[in-house]
């Protein structure tokens, strides 16, 4: 019997496998990881149609405004007047367990209906009349981050939300590739000779800084991520893959506070129903697998998941069986021990619309950010969210 086989078969091996976990847990306490709260952002890009996601199934105004688009079959009725799109079935259990809070009519004053600009507003936490160069999570990092791996986006590119004034999170689709490249001795030498501090404001200085940071973060992630922690079977799509990555990082206890994921394609100007059905299924199935994965690893309790889209869509459908850009929309918050689970507030009136025929907002998205920062991340929102906002009580 060779050594490997011996280890595999012996009872000793199984107890050996437990040791590192135990030691790790011990270390965690020492490095103040106890009660480590993590935030996972899910961005539905393109403007998800909130009215066909959370459906006012008793409202004639809804059915009249959308003769060919309104959903009437297989609605998952949650309350007397609101229900899930049929594709959201996998989230039903979360709703029933009090692990999902749905906040209706979220938006901001003078809504902008351009994808780019509205996403910009959501990511920078600005008003519609101001332009910020940094994102809200980036500014959180400015104040509370030490390493770029403190905030990870599972993508090839980093969103503005994750870029601070002085400090950025990191984007990666495959942390192994990053690690292997960073190991090259030539780069090590170039970096060890880098000394031009006056370049730091310049584009070239930015390149050097990013490279130095990439190297140390790549090392850290590679050495600390145990991919075996996530055995949960996820659906086969790229969004699920993102969440699986996040679960591996969380379950490996990485020192990462913020994760950013994104699912695109919601810009349904034409033939909306088939597209949205497919996308919401991907969303719900992936999120459900993700939560089960976290629960199995005991990490769900310290994880909060926020899902948003840059805007909702017009109440009235258009001629192409789609919907045009709208304004206020619903936001999902998923977590354990929510203060107010289920529906946080009721849906805005479908008769009292704004001049464009869109829902009027009643909750400013920045008050959700502010609440998450102060009630979940335990930091002050000052310097992160530029405007003063009321605290909500969903967590």
């Amino acid at each position, binding site marked *: 019997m060779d050594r490997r086989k011996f280890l595999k078969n012996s009872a000793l091996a199984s107890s050996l496998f437990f040791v590192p976990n135990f030691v790790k847990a011990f270390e965690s306490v020492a490095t103040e990881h106890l009660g480590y709260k993590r935030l996972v952002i899910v961005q539905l890009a393109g403007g998800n149609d909130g009215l066909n996601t959370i459906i006012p199934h008793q409202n004639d105004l809804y059915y009249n405004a959308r003769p060919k688009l309104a959903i009437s079959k297989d609605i998952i009725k949650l309350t007397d007047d609101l229900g899930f799109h049929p594709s959201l079935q996998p989230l039903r259990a979360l709703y029933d367990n009090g692990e999902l809070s749905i906040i209706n009519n979220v938006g901001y004053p003078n809504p902008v209906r*351009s994808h780019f600009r509205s996403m910009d507003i959501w990511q920078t936490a600005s008003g519609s009349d101001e332009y910020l160069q940094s994102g809200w999570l980036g500014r959180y990092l400015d104040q509370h981050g030490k390493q770029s791996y403190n905030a990870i986006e599972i993508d090839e590119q*980093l969103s503005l939300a994750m870029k601070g004034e002085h400090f950025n999170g990191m984007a990666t689709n495959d942390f192994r590739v990053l690690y292997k490249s960073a190991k090259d001795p030539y780069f090590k030498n*170039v970096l060890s000779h880098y000394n031009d501090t006056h370049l730091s404001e310049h*584009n*070239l200085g930015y*390149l050097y800084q990013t490279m130095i940071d*990439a190297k140390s973060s790549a090392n850290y992630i590679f050495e600390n991520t145990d991919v075996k922690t996530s055995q949960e079977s996820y659906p086969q799509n790229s969004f699920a893959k993102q969440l699986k990555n996040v679960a591996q990082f969380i379950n490996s206890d990485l020192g990462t506070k913020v994760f950013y994921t994104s699912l695109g394609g919601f810009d349904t100007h034409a033939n909306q129903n088939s597209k949205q059905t497919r996308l919401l299924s991907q969303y719900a199935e992936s999120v459900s697998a993700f939560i089960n994965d976290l629960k199995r690893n005991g990490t769900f309790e310290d994880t909060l998941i926020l899902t948003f889209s840059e805007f909702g869509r017009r109440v009235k459908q*258009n001629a192409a069986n789609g919907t045009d*850009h709208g304004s206020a929309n619903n936001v999902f918050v998923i977590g354990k021990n929510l203060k107010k689970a289920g529906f946080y507030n009721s849906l805005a009136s479908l008769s009292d619309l704004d001049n464009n025929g869109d829902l009027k907002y009643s909750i400013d998205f920045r008050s959700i950010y502010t609440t998450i920062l102060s009630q979940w991340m335990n930091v002050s929102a000052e310097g992160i969210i530029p405007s003063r906002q009321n605290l909500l009580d969903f967590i």
Partner: protein
Amino acid sequence: MYWRAGFGIHPKSNVTLSKHRASVVEALFESSKAFTSLNIDLSYLDGIKPIDLKNFPELAREINQKGVKKILEFNVAWVKRLVNPSELLRERMTLFWANHFVCRERNPLYAEQYNNTLRYFALGDFRDFVKAISKEAAMLRYLNGKQNKKARPNENFARELMELFTLGEGQYSEKDIKECARAFTGYNHDFGGNFVHKENHHDNNSKLFFNHIGNYDGDDIIDIILENKQCAAYISDKIYRYFVNPKPNKKHINAMTEVFFKDYNIENLMRFVFLSDWFYDEVNMGSKIKSPIEYLVGLTNTVPVTFESERDLFKIQKILGQTLLDPPNVAGWKGDKAWIDANTIMIRLKLPSVILNNALIASGEHDEFKKKFMTKHKGRLPFKTTPDWTTFLENFEAVSTEELQDYIIQGAINKGTADYLQTLSKVSKREYCVQLMSLPEYQMC
């Protein structure tokens, strides 16, 4: 200038450099007078009618699948065109406009047509350009222009026309957008991609747009938009940040605006830029971070490379964050610093050695051992390539190894790095070239 108007320079073209600036610039425009459209073989669509696709779903599926491959083929054809352009400046401008009039089209026929419209107008009349774009099948599909009908206006194109294509954010009211959308109602295209104006869907009532009242159509709206100097300023600003420096200079942009507003002639504007003294200011050299396409095309300009699988050209664009014909949204790629994050910087630094030297960058430490190892494991590299070092050596024959950096790196090299480069024994031009290309400095142009 050859980095901004093209994709780098060969020492062989030194002859032209020594000439007077005006004649170099003139030669650049002269060589881009012609127009060579970019075409791939789309004969599989010959004789197919829309009714066939309805009647034979099997055929429709087959055509769809073929379309996906053809878009890929067009992407590679475009990259190859950029590497070997017949009209250098025209191609450079086409690339710029593709990230201005941003459009994503999966039908290869419409995508090819759109791309050639960009190429055709790249140095022409901006007014005609915008009007042509508004009538392109690809754009009518991308921003829902063809769904914009009198009974139910669709504002998507109207909004982006002003926000992204002509005036910039905040230069119009929501009311202007609604009225603008009404003017473009009835715009449509036929199966072959030709523009069709459907009178029965056009709103023939009077519109109130930017304080003008009239029964306007789309062309009238574009004329009214261009009356606003802000349009010339918006385009000048964008051209400045792309061709000169990502940090805008108000004075220079104002001067450009004056030139452009006169006749909206793109060639005249570009001539003004390339002839201005400030264009050649030290502060503008190596101030810009190369886009992935600039990086890739520039690299293969210095050392010609053959990719065993053309798909790899496509893969590289993807991992670097810029796949031609596949922009993230109608605002396009943000560019400059946004190209760089922890992931892309490492890939950019590693890629030259992977493509050109079996992933080896000489560092003086165990180089011989590494070389053997890397050669042995060549098969595991993500890309199979054949670099043409012979051509490189021919082109750089007159350049000494020490001088190589003047050609490969734009702008200054960080002092510590320069000192480190000094310590390396410059065994060969070839090895030094790879070392230079693996520096953060190589990312600048």
